[in-house]
């Protein structure tokens, strides 16, 4: 993409509001929403399981299981359905890399 095209894309984005908007949701943004229950940086101080330290496979298998109702849960079946498989993979990578 040329600088000029980029500039006009950015201009178009800027026109929508005060701050320009990226079009894809970054893994860190997806993940911080989860912290309200699972604790800051995925480390839970209470009864809700931590997410940090889970392997990519464990996270992704659990989320996909919740999403398809193959794994029973209280609230996660309802929440997991709000994410695409690609977003689940991105989240799995994010949490596997969080220390």
């Amino acid at each position, binding site marked *: 993409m040329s*600088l000029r095209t*980029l*500039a006009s*894309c*950015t*201009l178009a*984005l*800027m026109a*929508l*509001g*005060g*701050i*320009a*908007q*990226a*079009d*894809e*949701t*970054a*893994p*860190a*943004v*997806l993940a*911080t*929403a*989860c*912290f*309200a*229950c*699972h*604790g*800051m940086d995925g480390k*839970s*101080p*209470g*009864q*809700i399981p931590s997410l940090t330290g889970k392997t990519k496979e464990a996270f992704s298998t659990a989320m996909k299981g919740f999403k398809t109702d193959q794994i029973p849960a*209280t*609230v996660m079946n*309802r*929440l*997991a*359905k*709000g*994410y695409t498989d690609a977003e689940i993979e*991105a989240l799995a990578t*994010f949490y596997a*890399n969080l220390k």
Partner: protein
Amino acid sequence: MHKINSRRDVLKLAGAATLAGMLPSGKAFAQAAGNVVVIGGGFGGASAARYLKRMGVNVTLIEANATFSTCPFSNTVLGGFGKMADITHNYDGLKRAGINVITGTVTGIDVAQKRVTVQGNTTPIPYDRMVVSSGIDFKFTGAGALAGYDEAATEKMPHAWKAGPQTELLARQLTAMPDGGTFIMTIPNNPYRCPPGPYERASLVAHYLKTNKPRSKILLLDGKETFSKQALFQGAWRELYGNMIEWVAFGQGGNVSRVDPNTMTAFTDFGQHKGDVVNVIPPQRSGRVVDLAGLATGDWCNVNQATFESRTVPGVHVIGDACVAGAMPKSGFSANNQAKVAAAAIVASLRNQPAPSPSLINVCYSLVNPDYGISVASVHRVGEDGTIISVPNSGGTSAANASADVRKLEAEYARGWYKSIMQEMFG
């Protein structure tokens, strides 16, 4: 506020955007310079301050009170099994994190000069961007107010819709109520803070009365025809509390048009009801501090729902109960999630980068008794029309036929959520 002034600026901006695109995701918490003032130290404000600080922003948090009592879990105090100390938090953790916490009342906001005046401080506080998380105030006068219910009336008919002394007053009144007495709650029409809150409160008051004063009655006079988690609440009420709780919908005579604190009476379109304890949840609007900056349009503040930047005052972000946030309810959880989105947008703007595309969650847990939890959950994105939508085919309420074990687990998770979010907010 970033403004495009020239083609050179646009090119500079485009360059920054490209650079942002190449950064690995882990760099989302990298440093950003700038001064941000946050007004309000509740779910939205405390969360915003903490996230901005950890992204390297200089943050000043201005809060009128030295401590914050949460509305979530305040109904456990009325239920007789929670303590005010359990739901009251101070700002020491924010100070330790390096946030400049000012305890004081905001008396002026100069949006042109970008500075805030606090009562007792002669020097205004400058900002590059501001976050306003004012919560709610009550309509005691004027259009939309409930006749007979003013500030003085709250001492006889507590609202307890801001947690603190009002919660304690309502708890004392419940304790003093005779067995066989009537507890009345008046509930406003939407929108108001915490849609399922009144019904959780009715549940936990019923828990207290069943334990201590089993001949008593609860009368809910509602300004609506339906309510949040209605089937779950009503099923649980029958199961746990028999006929103790009577709910009267708007059309069935639930609409309260006037109250009289001297006779402890609520007047509806069809009649009048006298209570031993009357809990009036009044009609609401955004916290009055927003008026100092002209942020409200009507009762609430319109924002760009992708960044929470005000539609009326550029450079100011309004989050939480005070803003209009599409499909998201007015809840502490929503305010916390909106704080993260606003913080990320602010940091992006300070770096001349595009704001990240938001993703938000809301989960509202309600306790029907200490071991019986139900929830409503939703995942949110910004739709094509720019408003916050719920992701289709996701979210919803707890299962209607869940086992007692599942209800108990949800009650545990409600307590777990509280621990997590309090640590996130207050450290």
